[in-house]
């Protein structure tokens, strides 16, 4: 205790400048943690609002009947529009991915990859203007026009996702196939592509999840519809979930809001489960490819 002799058993505590630096470092760690907590909290608040308000609106009648008691026409319409979009985008996207990994040299692959990234970056409202000019103006609105716009949104997602998995297919498999004298196209179709099915499925599901909630292009392509009855003809305007939520939010009528929350809950749960499922699928197929 006495005088200047420090207690040798006391723990070493930093002082002065070192203490300040360590405190600051601790502070930044807390700040970074707080940022992550904030993001998760925002997600929790948004999801909680949608679930708590949407659950009240949803019952059997809500899913099976037309407006003003239910939203079945919108659900069917969105399903059809997205299905057609995927039917267009999936084959083209897979072929582009094959071109990138199996055929293109670096001189063709670079610009093509850039094209896909640009396509991914085109604001979706621009795609709305595009299909309006191409398929709606001087004709009429149609679910199909919406599908074309959504296909353009899905295409880069499917192509890039597929390409990522195709790159994981071990070269030894291609070489083994070559050594057996199998023609290139046969080995691509029967060796390379099948081993990447999991990845292609993942990319497709993610693209579908993204397209299902896309609103902007459908405002141009398929917004003047009758929400009361189911439409199955894609060559006329089809009721669909995103545009109907948008319309209800613009109308400012509390009863409409309840419908909006109900549809939001259906749409969000579809998207969240789809992306969670896709994530699990991707993990599995990646593990299988890298272990073989």
């Amino acid at each position, binding site marked *: 205790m006495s005088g200047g002799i420090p207690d040798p058993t006391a723990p070493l505590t930093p002082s002065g400048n070192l203490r300040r*630096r*360590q405190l*600051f*470092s601790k502070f930044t*760690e807390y700040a*970074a*943690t*707080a*940022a*992550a907590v904030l*993001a*998760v909290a925002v*997600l929790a608040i*948004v999801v909680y609002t949608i679930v708590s308000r949407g659950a009240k609106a949803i019952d059997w009648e809500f899913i099976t009947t037309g407006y003003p008691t239910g939203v079945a026409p919108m659900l069917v319409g969105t399903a059809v529009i997205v299905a057609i979009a995927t039917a267009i985008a999936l*084959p*083209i996207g897979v*072929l582009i991915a094959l*071109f990138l990994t*199996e055929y293109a040299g670096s001189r*063709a692959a670079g*610009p*093509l990859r850039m*094209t*896909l*990234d*640009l*396509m991914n*970056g085109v*604001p*979706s*409202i*621009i*795609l709305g*203007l*595009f299909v*309006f*000019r191409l398929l709606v103006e001087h004709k009429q609105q149609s679910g199909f026009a919406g599908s074309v716009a959504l296909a*353009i949104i899905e*295409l880069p997602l499917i*192509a890039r996702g597929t390409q990522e998995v195709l790159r994981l297919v071990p070269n030894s498999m291609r070489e083994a196939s070559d050594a057996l004298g199998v023609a290139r*196209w046969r080995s*691509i179709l029967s060796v390379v592509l099948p081993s990447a099915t999991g990845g292609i499925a993942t990319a497709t599901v993610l693209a579908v*999840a993204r397209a299902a*909630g896309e*609103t*902007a292009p459908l405002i*141009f392509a398929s*917004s003047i519809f009758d929400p009361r009855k189911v439409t199955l003809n894609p060559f006329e305007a089809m009721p669909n979930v*995103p545009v109907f*939520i*948008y319309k209800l*939010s*613009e109308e400012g009528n509390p009863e409409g809001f309840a419908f*909006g929350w109900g549809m*939001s809950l259906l*749409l*969000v749960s579809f*998207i969240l489960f789809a*992306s*969670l499922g896709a994530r699990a699928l991707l993990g599995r197929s990646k593990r299988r490819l890298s272990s073989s």
Partner: protein
Amino acid sequence: MPPASITLPPTMSSPATPALAASRASRSGDRRKRADRFGDRALFALCAAAALLAVVVLVLVAYQVVDGARPAMAKYGLSFITDTEWQPNFKVFGAGVPLFGTLVSSFSALLIGAPIAIAIGLFLSLLAPKGVAALVAPLVEMLAAIPSVILGFWGLLILAPFVQSTIEPFLHDTLGFIPIFGDPQTTGLSVFTASLILTIMIVPIIAAISRDLFMAVPRDLQDGAAALGATRWEVVRGVILPTTASGVVAASILGLGRALGEAIAVSQVIGGGIEIGKLFEPGDTLAARIALQFPGALSELHKSALFYLGVILLVIGLLSNLTAQWIGRRFSYQGVAAK
């Protein structure tokens, strides 16, 4: 799991006399060779056609939008971009107000969002225990999966009233001496609310990319700095951020591009203002104005003017995207790859 059974092709499993078998084999081999030659060409042609189609579609999108804008371009020329008058009834159009709103709302979103996103990236790559990171990372990405129309709906009914009653008065009281933080308004529909919604949209994008960048920083460099006595923050400040700076910038520009082009969510909460206002007043963005006015466009010229807004948006969007790609390719892995 091994394949259940291996069935031999019929030519191999049914041996005929050797000579006959040989001639049949060579004939079928010929046929097969021809089929293969055709198949090879066909698959290549298909793949190349698909790739070409992607390029054509992109060009066609740009062409159609520019073509739609032609009447307005011919009438107003380049002064359209800065003109702030927009009166569809009198056929007077100018993009000044929505252009200003687009830039203000997107850059505000970036200003709020980028630091948060980078901090999340740091948390996920350096601080969080593995289990926590594996849980939080997908949650943050979920935020990006929520459709914009639903986020806008939420913004309109939940966030806007909260902003109006709580955040705006607070910011006005503390930062009101800066002119842009003007008086709180009667509704929460404002440029500021739109920025908050955009922030929610871009944070997951920037966070996911920066996390991957931070994880790719070589361990040796970090350990070296730590061995010299650097605190955790000093490792981040001195090693991690400098080696990944260009990638983080590219990620931020990508996020900015997403914010610039967002139409639906913004149109729901921005309030559709018609003049350049302060942060808490209603405003408008290029994309939001197209979404709001196109369905009820009064004249062909009105439509064309909206297409002109689309052209401006497309140019800004493509430029930001190209810049991000260029920075990403040119600089991103220099520090990291050259160990």
